[in-house]
Structure formats: structure tokens, C-alpha cells
């Protein structure tokens, strides 16, 4: 009897989980469906059965070269993530293993910069980019995205590092390891799941960023967010094309997320159960 109830509960949980998963995935699914419709079908109301035309994809590709914004997205997302890790690993190490009275305040202050609306600093940042020649460059955007995602990266790494016993690092020091060796050969291998999930999450955040990537680029460094924005129009039918452009923009990150979901989940639950 107890087994039967348990199985029913399991089935209930499974159905609930599938329902929630479908609910979360539905906007992406509907975007994919819309991209396979004609423009007329796309605007004529809710319909889950498309005519499976690839016309919108052809139109998008003929209108714009997808490769350039795609390559910009890859370079900017990966570059800003690596740069952020280079800065954040030592910072998180210091905060986790050599905390001071003000460490928590510094962490809170770093996080508080994320609470400010981006548009509030648009003009100063814009002027800095203009004066320093960083406008519409991949380097400028890489640095910008690194800076805006740095608080999250530091916070995540700090949380993972705190789970690593300080005694292990002390033992390494006793064995004569230098600070650099301690971070590279002891700390980093132990925190690989956490670093991997931080890396993946930061790539996703950088890939999806649309405010600064549109404001600070024109043609040379414009990534896929600018590519999508170019397909919206107040007059004329464009929903199917916009959906096709969106699918082309999210497909790489979706595929990457699919293949790395184990590492992502492992990292995000790292230290959750002791």
C-alpha cells in the first residue's frame, strides 16, 4: 500500500515537474514554431501547427550576414568570461580565506552596483568609450561585459570557495606551496565544478546582454542582440522573421547549455548537501 502511494506521488511529482518545465520552455518553443510559419500565419493568432516553411530563415540570411554578429557574440561572451575569472578567482580567494571585518560590506557593495539601472550611467560610459576609442570595438565590449558581470562571478566563486576547508590550503602552505601554486594547483582543481558553472552562467549572461551591446556598437562589434533588434518593425509583417532571427541567436547558447547541463547543475548545487 505504501509502495502504491509512493509511486502515485512520484508520478504526480513527475507530471508537475514536466508541466513546470514545459511552462518555462514554452516561450522558446513558440518562438521556434513561429519561425516556421509564414508571416500571415504568425500574426493571425495563436496556432501551434506551423506550415513548416524555412522562408523566414532564408529571408533573414539574405538580409543580413549572420556570421559577423555570431562571431562577435562568441568573442565577447567568452572573452569577458575568461577576463572576469582571471580577476574574480584571486578576489574570491582573498575574501574566502583571508576575510577582514569589511569583507561582507565589500561583497554587498559589489552586488549593489547591479541594482543600479544601466541607463543611469549611459552617458558617462558612452563618453568614456568615445574618448578612449573603445566605441564599437570588441575589446571595449568585452571589458564592459566583464565589469557588469564581475559582481556575480565574485559572489558565486566566493560561495564555492567557502565550502573548501581552509586546512587543505594550510597543508599545502606547510608543504612549501607559494600563493600562486596554492591557487592554481590546490584551490582551482577542488573548485572546478563551481568555476565551471560560474563560467557557463557568465557566458549565458554575456550572450544575452542587450542594453550595452546595442548602445556601444554600430557595425564592427555588433553582436547577435543587435542582429535581433534589426528585425523589429512597427509597420509591416515581421514576426516570423524576428522569430527566425531569435532562434538563430539563441541556438548556440541553447545547445551549449544542453551539453553542459550536468556541470551546470553540479556546480549550482555544489556544497548544498554536506
Amino acid at each position, binding site marked *: 500500500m505504501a509502495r502504491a502511494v509512493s509511486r502515485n506521488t512520484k508520478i504526480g511529482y513527475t507530471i508537475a515537474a514536466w508541466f513546470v518545465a514545459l511552462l518555462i520552455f514554452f516561450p522558446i518553443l513558440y518562438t521556434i514554431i513561429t519561425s516556421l510559419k509564414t*508571416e*500571415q500565419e504568425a*500574426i*493571425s493568432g495563436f496556432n501551434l501547427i506551423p506550415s513548416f516553411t524555412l522562408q523566414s530563415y532564408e529571408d533573414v540570411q539574405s*538580409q*543580413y550576414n549572420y556570421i559577423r554578429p555570431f562571431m562577435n557574440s562568441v568573442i565577447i561572451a567568452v572573452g569577458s568570461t575568461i577576463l572576469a575569472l582571471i580577476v574574480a578567482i584571486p578576489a574570491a580567494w582573498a575574501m574566502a580565506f583571508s576575510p577582514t571585518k569589511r569583507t561582507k560590506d565589500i561583497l554587498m557593495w559589489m552586488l549593489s552596483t547591479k541594482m543600479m539601472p544601466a541607463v543611469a550611467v*549611459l*552617458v558617462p560610459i*558612452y*563618453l568614456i568609450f*568615445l574618448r578612449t576609442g573603445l*566605441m*564599437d570595438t570588441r575589446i571595449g565590449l568585452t571589458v564592459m561585459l566583464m565589469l557588469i558581470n564581475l559582481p556575480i562571478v565574485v559572489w558565486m566563486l566566493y560561495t564555492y570557495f567557502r565550502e573548501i576547508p581552509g586546512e587543505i590550503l594550510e597543508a599545502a602552505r606547510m608543504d612549501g606551496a607559494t600563493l600562486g601554486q596554492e591557487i592554481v594547483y590546490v584551490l582551482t582543481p577542488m573548485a572546478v565544478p563551481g568555476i565551471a558553472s560560474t563560467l557557463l552562467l557568465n557566458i549565458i549572461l554575456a550572450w544575452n546582454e542587450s542594453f550595452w551591446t*546595442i*548602445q556601444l556598437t*554600430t*557595425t564592427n562589434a*555588433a553582436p547577435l542582440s*543587435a542582429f535581433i*533588434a*534589426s*528585425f*523589429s*518593425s*512597427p*509597420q*509591416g*509583417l*515581421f514576426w516570423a522573421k524576428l522569430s527566425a532571427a531569435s532562434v538563430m541567436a539563441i541556438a548556440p547558447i541553447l545547445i551549449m547549455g544542453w551539453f553542459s547541463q550536468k556541470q551546470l547543475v553540479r556546480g549550482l548545487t555544489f556544497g548544498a548537501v554536506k
Partner: protein
Amino acid sequence: MSMMWRSLMGACAATALVFPAVAETITIATVNNGDMIRMQKMTKSFTDANPDIQLEWVTLEENILRERVTTDIATSGGQYDVLTIGTYEVPIWAAQDWLVALDDLGDDYDVDDLLPPVRAALSVEDTLYAVPFYAESAMVMYRTDLAEAAGVTISENPTWTEIKAAAEAMTDKGSETYGICLRGKPGWGENMAFLTAMSNSYGARWFDPEWNPQFDSAEWNETLTDYLDLMTNYGPPGASSNGFNENLSLFQQGKCGIWIDATVAASFVTDPANSTVADKVGFAKFPNKDGVDNHGNWLWAWSLAIPSSSNSPDAAKKFVAWATSKAYTEEVAAAEGWRAAPPGTRTSLYENAEYQAEAPFAAMTLTAIEAANTQKSSVQDIPYTGGQFVAIPEFQGIGTAVGQQFSAALAGQMSATDALAAAQANTTREMTRAGYIK
């Protein structure tokens, strides 16, 4: 030594040969619509004739473009050499010295061929600051078959009374045929473009000469009450979410008896490839209230302008002159037929028999544009210019806030009286803050 001199001289000569061949690049910021996309495809003739000029395109959504370009001009960024802007921005930006005057586009440009209302809307103190790529007014588009079946006629100069009677006669909600489709989606360029034009035709105005909002006037009350009455009784369900594109789709699917909107829609609804009612569409002027000589004064022109921060103003001038020339129109017609020619900008296009034959909406589009007076859009005294908008920088915010109140009234969340009272209070507060009301 002589070897070194020879090498240096050779290098100098090579440099001198190479430098003229380096092309000047101009960056063009534009919006995504059919005519603009076509222009991007047609640029070969320009680049062939001007091998020293290279074109880079930045296509953005209209509001993002406006935001992006405003930041760039305000900071003298110089990221763009040619901007696609509308009749709303031109007078405001020109007054700020943000745009280059376009009074020297060459002898063969034929500036006098531009339609006078469009030229006026893009000029400040008789100086042209942008050149029109395509222009539109607003008019009535209606189903001739439904009108005939219902036994009603719509004259070329309809009144709102006539429109209401026709909408009532054509409505058959059982078969999803709605007598009238109008914009309901909130936004200064969405429902407020329509409602401002409608209010003009009712004799209303946004502000009196001292900039006091006029939503408490009898004219605005009548405008909004009649709009809500039309849409509630004869409009489609969920109309408060409908903008240009949604109504276009409804009309093309045969679900609207009457649609009053931008003249550019005429080419879409009469296109057999996309419209199920392509051969059953009639056109009439934007309606007016009985006794008020005003047909809304809707006028919009997507235009090309050169920001004063441009690093290549001369090359940019060459481009805008080419893209808005008679020769460009002829190139489009040769490549894709006269129906595809950018409408509403030049008198010569409307004198062209081939265009008239291919575009059944040509005559009414011209009539609508010629009737638009953006310098005095209301029959009452007003301190502003602009047709379906008020050409002041604050209008985007105020227009959208008022549009939200009116859209809420259409959705049944508040009465017309409450929406007008909220609009009056909100607009008075914003205009006082902005220093218009002393």
C-alpha cells in the same frame, strides 16, 4: 644614400597612388521596413557611381534607434553619418543644431518637386533639414463588397456620422466581421497618433496658446466618447492591444469593414499575395466631424538626415541626394515595378501615368498628404506644430502616458470621463515640471 632616396620616393609615390583609392565609409542608421530594406539592396548603382564611398548599415527597432541616435548626437559621438528619422524629430533636432542643413543637394536634385506639406514638415524657417524617403498621411480603407451588401456608401469626404452608420451596417460579429478597426495599443506613435488626428478632426487641440492641456474640453470628450462607442459596439475583441500590424492582419483576413490608418497600408491591403480582399478595397479621406473643416492632419515622413557630428557630411549628402532622388524612384520601378516606388514624397510620381495605373491608392494618398497641415493642425489657436503629434521633446512621454489612460478606457477599466481627467492631470503636471506652464 641614393638607394635610400629612391626607396623613399618610391614609397611616397605608392602612398600617393593608394590614398585616393581608400574609400570613405559612411554609416547609415535605419529602421526595418520594406522600403528601407529595398534601399539597402539597391545601393549598387550608388556605390558604382561613387567608388570612393562605402556604405555601412545599422538597422534597429524604431524606439531603440531613436534612443541610440539621440545619445550619439547629444554627446557628439559621430558614430552615424546618415540617420533615418521622422517628422517628429526633425523640427526638434534642427532647433538644437543637431542636423546639417540640406539646402545644397545639387542642381539635378529638384527640391521643388517635393510635395509641399512634406517639405514644410521637414523644414525649419524654410531651410530643409531632412529629405523624405517615403511619406504617409492617413485615410479610410473600406471593404467595397461589405458596404454594397450592407447597402451603405462611403463618400470621398466622409464624416464621422457616416463612418459610424457604415460600421454599424457592416458589423456581423457572428461571422467575425467587425465594422471598424482602429488602433488601441497604447503609445504616442500608436493609439495617440490616431486619436490626436481624430481629435483634430473634431476641432480639439492638445494645448491652448499658454500650453494648458485641453482634455477637459467638450471636443476631447466628444472625440473619446465616439471612439469608445465605435470600438465597443463595432470593433474587434481585444482592440486595446491592436496597433498598425494587428489591424493590418485583421483587414487582410477580411475581418474589418473599415480601417482608418496610415496611407502606406494601402499597398499592403491591395497586394494579392498577402491580402484576401485585395480587389475589394475602397479609399476615402480621413473623416471629419460635421461642420469642422479638418481631416486630421496626419503626416509622417521617414526621412534621411545628416547629424552635425558626422565626420563625412559631403559623402553623406551625396548618399541622401541619391536615395531620395527621382532617379532612385525610377530604378526601383525598373527593378520591382511602380507599386514598389517609395510613396508620398514627389509630385512627379503622382503625375506618372504608369504609377497611377499600378497603384489604385495613389490619388487618395496624394489627396490625404496634400490636405495635411502640420503647421496648424487644429482649427483652434495652438502654440505647437505637428499633425498626429505635438512637436515638443516631452511629447513621447506625455503622449504614451495619455495613450495608456485611453487604452485602459477601451479595455473597459475606466470611463471616458475618468480617462480624460487622468490625462488632464498627468499632462498638466508634466508640462508644469517642464516649464511650459508658468
